[in-house]
């Protein structure tokens, strides 16, 4: 308990210190919201391994006083080497943030279709504060996790994305976050709100890249509403650096006959943790929460999913695959909750990990909680090593060992990538997989085309 107090208090102090410099400080409702957030955070505190959702993940010691946000330092933190990184980005509509600061010079909104609003939170607080208020301020602060509550208090960046009724956009829209090249460790609490109105469709790609080597702490909360018959494809590509702590909580509500598809791809990060909570609220609602991660060194990746099947005829599918080398650790905790009236629920959950080293470790806990009687649910978790017979088979055909290993790793991950319905994004991720692999390996082109 004492430990927890010690870790919690500096964040509270930091809030007291910077609150007047946070965006929207003149909005009374936001001030109240932030207050509620910090109070909740002080009561809950930072998670420890006694917190169920943090059972296998120990939060590294963060001395938050060392961390700064450019958003409250009222200035730009030095950043170079950005253009180079962006050159391989999917060249399209995007907002680019560097160390949490929006960079209009790198963003591209020229082809934004009608019926879509896509802007930084800081800007939306000025242009449309009523909308933000309507999204944030429910009767009671809903956050019951320490870091989500802290985000409510500290939010200083983030993106607001709204798609009007019936508007359908095919091309992926991108949010790019670059972190790491800075004079001091960077802290950020982005708060995103994505609302797809009835019958709309969009694809959103969020890229988080660690450029450079300095530490950063990112504590994001994303609130998503997928309206009736709407489809949101939401992909996250995390290439965080070794010193990064990246926490993300995603809360999703899915309406009648609507689909929420998400894929979280993570390579790197001292701690990369994504908690996705989905409420299937309308008949025929469907979600696919899948992901892949590739970790080495002492990196740690944690995926948590909680799906509430609240009404009849909803479906959920989850496929997570991870590759862990050296002393890397992976965690998967997935829970499907089938509520009493949610008949004919169909739920499938799979976690598979490939350990490349005997010091690597995987903890998987798939869970079903079923209160209805007519349901189809399955879950499974496996952890294994490279198949030595397959390796020999490849080598006996002349394929050098390093290449053969890479091919087997690639094929292991490829199964998860099949969950991604957007071809462009799937290819982009296949490219990142190749990038992660050691030594020489197959080119992406060959892989994808086969």
């Amino acid at each position, binding site marked *: 308990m004492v430990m927890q107090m010690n870790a919690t208090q500096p964040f509270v102090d930091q809030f007291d210190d910077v609150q007047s410099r946070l965006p929207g400080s003149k909005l009374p409702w936001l001030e109240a919201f932030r207050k509620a957030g910090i109070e909740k955070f002080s009561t809950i505190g930072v998670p420890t391994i006694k917190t169920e959702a943090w059972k296998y993940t120990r939060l590294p010691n963060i001395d938050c006083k060392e961390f700064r946000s450019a958003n409250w330092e009222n200035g730009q933190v030095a950043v170079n080497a950005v253009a180079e990184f962006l050159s391989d980005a999917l060249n399209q509509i995007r907002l680019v943030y560097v160390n949490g600061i929006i960079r209009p010079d790198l963003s591209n909104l020229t082809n934004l279709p009608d019926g879509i609003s896509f802007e930084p939170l800081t800007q939306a607080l000025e242009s449309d504060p009523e909308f933000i208020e309507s999204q944030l301020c429910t009767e009671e602060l809903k956050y019951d996790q320490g870091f989500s509550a802290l985000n409510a208090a500290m939010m200083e960046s983030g993106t607001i994305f709204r798609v009007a009724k019936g508007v359908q956009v095919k091309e992926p829209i991108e949010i790019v976050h670059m972190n790491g090249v800075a004079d001091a460790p960077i802290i950020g609490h982005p708060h995103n709100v994505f609302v797809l109105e009835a019958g709309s469709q969009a694809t959103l790609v969020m890229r988080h890249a660690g450029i450079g080597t300095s530490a950063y702490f990112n504590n994001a909360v994303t609130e998503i509403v997928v309206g009736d018959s709407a489809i949101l494809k939401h992909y996250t590509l995390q290439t965080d650096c070794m010193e990064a702590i990246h926490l993300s909580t995603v809360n999703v509500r899915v309406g009648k006959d609507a689909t929420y598809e998400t894929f979280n791809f993570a390579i790197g990060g001292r701690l990369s943790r994504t908690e996705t909570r989905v409420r299937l609220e309308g008949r025929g609602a469907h979600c696919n929460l899948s992901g892949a991660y590739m970790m080495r060194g002492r990196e740690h990746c944690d995926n948590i999913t909680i799906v509430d099947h609240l009404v009849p005829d909803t479906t959920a599918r989850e496929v997570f695959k991870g590759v862990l080398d050296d002393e890397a650790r992976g965690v998967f905790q997935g829970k499907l909750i089938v509520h009493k009236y949610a008949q004919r629920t169909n739920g499938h959950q799979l976690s598979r990990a490939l350990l490349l080293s005997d010091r690597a470790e995987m903890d998987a806990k798939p869970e079903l909680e079923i209160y209805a009687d007519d349901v189809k649910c399955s879950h499974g978790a496996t952890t294994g090593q490279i*198949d*030595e*017979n*397959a390796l*020999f*088979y*490849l*080598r*006996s*055909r*002349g*394929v*050098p*060992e390093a*290449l*053969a290993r890479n*091919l*087997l790793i*690639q*094929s*292991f991950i*490829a*199964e998860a990538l099949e969950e991604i319905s957007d071809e462009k994004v799937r290819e982009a991720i296949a490219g990142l997989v190749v990038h992660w692999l050691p030594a020489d390996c*197959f080119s992406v082109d*060959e*892989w994808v*085309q*086969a």
Partner: protein
Amino acid sequence: MLEIKNLHATVGGKEILKGINLTVNAGEVHAIMGPNGSGKSTLSYVISGKDGYEVTEGQILYNGIDLTEMEPEIRAAEGVFLAFQYPVEIPGVPNVTFLKEAVNAVRRHRGEDELDAMQFVKMIKAKTEELGIAKDMLKRAVNVGFSGGEKKRNEILQMAVLNPKLAVLDETDSGLDIDALKIVSDGVNQLRSDERAILVITHYQRLLDHIVPDFVHVLAHGKIQRSGGKELAFELEEKGYAEYGVAAE
């Protein structure tokens, strides 16, 4: 081409091969027959270099060079090919990708230009037609969900594209119906040439009706017990392996 001298090998600390002597010249087809558990697959793995199969004594000379310390991929690139008794399934790797990487790895080793996608597809299409192999086998993941016959045909396809100098076929006939047996043996017969040596390992004489060997050897208790011409196969078919101290199956 292949000269095995006093070969002893252990698997999991147990001696399985206990002094094999065998010479196979270019242009020849040799058959090795023997009861289950006599060490036939062990011999094929030792020749191709599988981990865990340890040579404790003797030599395997391939064109005068000892293979025993060589990595399996180098052996393959140098022209040694093993058609597996139990071909391995590799989920997620399309057969065509597998074949292309294998062919190009071998070409790189030999100092030849790699085949680009176009060239490769052209080559592989011609081969599948030549061998009477259905094209959809190329798209599917390596051996995953293949029938026993398809797996063996896939081995023959790999052999045909890799163009080995020494081919070892481990019970390629087991579990095949007559049609599949014909595809497989036609494939092997097409490869018969003065520059190539083929070692056919089998439990039954049946395959040897299709691939007629120049020499037949009986392997039992980790040793070649007897060698002879193709008539030895007929004798084994009739009498079984009883005279080698193996109970009839």
